[in-house]
């Protein structure tokens, strides 16, 4: 019996993969089957996980989570009112009363938006600020730390100016452009080398400097109220560079996880179905 089900699963898997060739009747069959079965499956899941325990059981059976509740009690009303709002959604099937359904949608959308304000502010703003407001200096030698920090700031300012602001200002002389680029590259490399050296002594945290510069640059990129020119344009360029590096890393990492999905399917076909591999 198991072999029959495994074979059905394997044939459906192959039918889905046949889409790689082109759209065909096997794919259409598998597609319609999986869409239909999953829609029906989720209907049952929704009923038994949400409607029955949260609406049907409290309102009609006067039980919530296995505990009895009183008719007309607070919990009973708390089950009845959302249930009624849910029923209002079906008013759309009666054009004359379709507008009533908007009440439910209004409560639902507004409720979620309101509930989301505090957690989002907490998790995405305050927590992020706390995590990113870090010291960029080490602790061994305060004087050296301040000196090297100032040096690092000067180098980064020079890099930013040469790499971004200067380029934005523009020059028509080709040689001058090449010169600026060369100087930028040398300054950039020198700055990086110096910072790495300082970082290796534990006086300045290169990681934290990158973190702060990257964050400020990225924030600048998502600033919509001004044109991306001048200092803001420069910071935004730094930000988009950081974003792209991050996306590149994420891309490689996620591709590996996608490959593992493929391996899972191939393993199902060759191991569970055909028993060709151990």
């Amino acid at each position, binding site marked *: 019996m198991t072999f029959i089900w495994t074979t059905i699963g394997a044939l459906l898997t192959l039918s889905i993969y046949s889409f790689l060739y082109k*759209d065909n009747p096997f*794919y259409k069959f598998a597609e319609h089957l999986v869409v239909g079965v999953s829609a029906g499956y989720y209907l049952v899941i929704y009923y038994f996980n949400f409607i029955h325990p949260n609406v049907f059981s409290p309102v009609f059976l006067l039980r919530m989570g296995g505990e009895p509740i009183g008719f007309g009690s607070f919990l009973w009303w708390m089950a009845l009112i959302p249930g009624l709002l849910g029923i209002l959604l079906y008013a759309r099937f009666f054009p004359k009363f379709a507008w009533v359904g908007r009440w439910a949608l209004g409560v639902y959308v507004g409720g979620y938006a309101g509930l989301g304000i505090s957690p989002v*502010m*907490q998790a995405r703003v305050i927590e992020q600020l*706390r995590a990113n407001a870090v010291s960029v200096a080490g602790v061994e030698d305060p004087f050296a730390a301040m000196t090297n920090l100032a040096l690092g700031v000067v180098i980064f300012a020079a890099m930013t100016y040469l790499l971004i602001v200067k380029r934005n200002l523009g020059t028509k002389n080709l040689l001058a452009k090449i010169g600026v680029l060369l100087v930028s590259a040398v300054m950039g490399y020198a700055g990086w080398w110096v910072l790495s050296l300082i970082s290796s002594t534990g006086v300045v945290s290169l990681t934290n400097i990158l973190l702060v510069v990257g964050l400020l640059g990225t*924030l*600048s990129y998502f*600033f*919509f109220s001004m*044109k991306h020119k001048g200092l803001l344009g420069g910071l935004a360029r730094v930000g988009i560079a950081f974003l792209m590096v991050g996306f590149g890393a994420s891309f490689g990492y996620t591709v590996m996880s996608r490959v593992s999905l493929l391996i899972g399917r191939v393993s199902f076909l060759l191991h569970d179905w055909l028993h060709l591999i151990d």
Partner: protein
Amino acid sequence: MFADKGRLSAERFGAGLVILTVTALSLCPAPAAAQDGAPTEADSLASVPSLAPPANVQVVDRDNDRGSQIDVSWEPPADVEAGGVEFYRIFRSSHPDTGFTDVGRVGFTQTSYVDAGLENETEYYYRVAAGAGEELSYSPTIGPVVSRPHWFNTERLNCLVAVVIFVAAIIIFVTWAKGGRELFIRRLPGLDEMDNAVGRATEMGKPILYITGLSGISDVATIAAINILGEVAKKTAEYNTRLIVPCADPIVMAVEQEVVKEAYAEMGRPDAYNDDDVFYLTRSQFAYVAGVNGIMVRQRPATILYMGMFYAESLVLAETGSSVGAIQIAGTDAVTQLPFFITSCDYTLIGEELYAASAYLSREPILLGGLKGQDTFKFLVGMLLILGVIAATLASIGAIEANFMAPLYSTG
């Protein structure tokens, strides 16, 4: 019981003191819980006075919670030599004299315990015992204490202030926008292409496919996607282009049907709206992908818009869309999916650009005001970050005593 205690005493002080110890123990008053005679776990454990009890035990209702929790704290026994205490056990009862049950045990380095899962507005009594091996030495009974829910979490005051500033900024800008003040928004290339994408579909006589991802209505990205859908629907109504919206969530479907219907009505084309073009497909992730892929290869849409929250299905959808020759514009705040959209779509709205899109497209004062308010808040956050970095740096090198920005970030 006596024999056991006598053996322990004999080991420490010598056999000559056994009788004296036993006599002394028999004369000592028994622990309060034992006087009642009701057998409890606490009562059944041996109590040896050689181990001093924890000092200064305090029980208070836990601050800033929603009730059901009580803080128990104590000081280590002062007259016990180092290493004498191995653990502390916390006992609770709803009566001062009897019924104490063991509710927790912590290591000897800890001097506090949070007792959770209590009934609100009920009086509780506590005893803390210092323990070593089988020996326990009880503190006096402390209480009563009552747990209550708190209406305001003072540790989240910074969150409230931030929300107030954020909302105030939005209200100010919305008022300005409604008053006719021109509010500038920088160019967003992906959105500038929206008109071209709709126009392309119109010229080719093919539909536009709009996908809002798998998330429900509680997701900010989905709400942003629905806002953009309204603007796209206005254009498709204007150009009389078919708009197909397969949904993965029934509530999202209901909202999207309303939004599209209203957009068509607003453009004076209620007759062109087709309820069946905004439909529910399935909630299952890859079944949804299979269904949408089928729509792509059979309907051959000229334009595909992916707006909202996406998961592993993003690349499969975008690659299929690319293979049918559609112009594709994506927008999502799903960081892990953005790389896939960037590589396979013509334009991609990154993160917050998605939220800005509806204001950018509609130029409605309320949305524009909201966007400007967000920008103002972002600017403030940037400034706070710089101040925070300076404060943390100065504090770490000892130039100042403490990080003066730290209270702003406390999260409770």
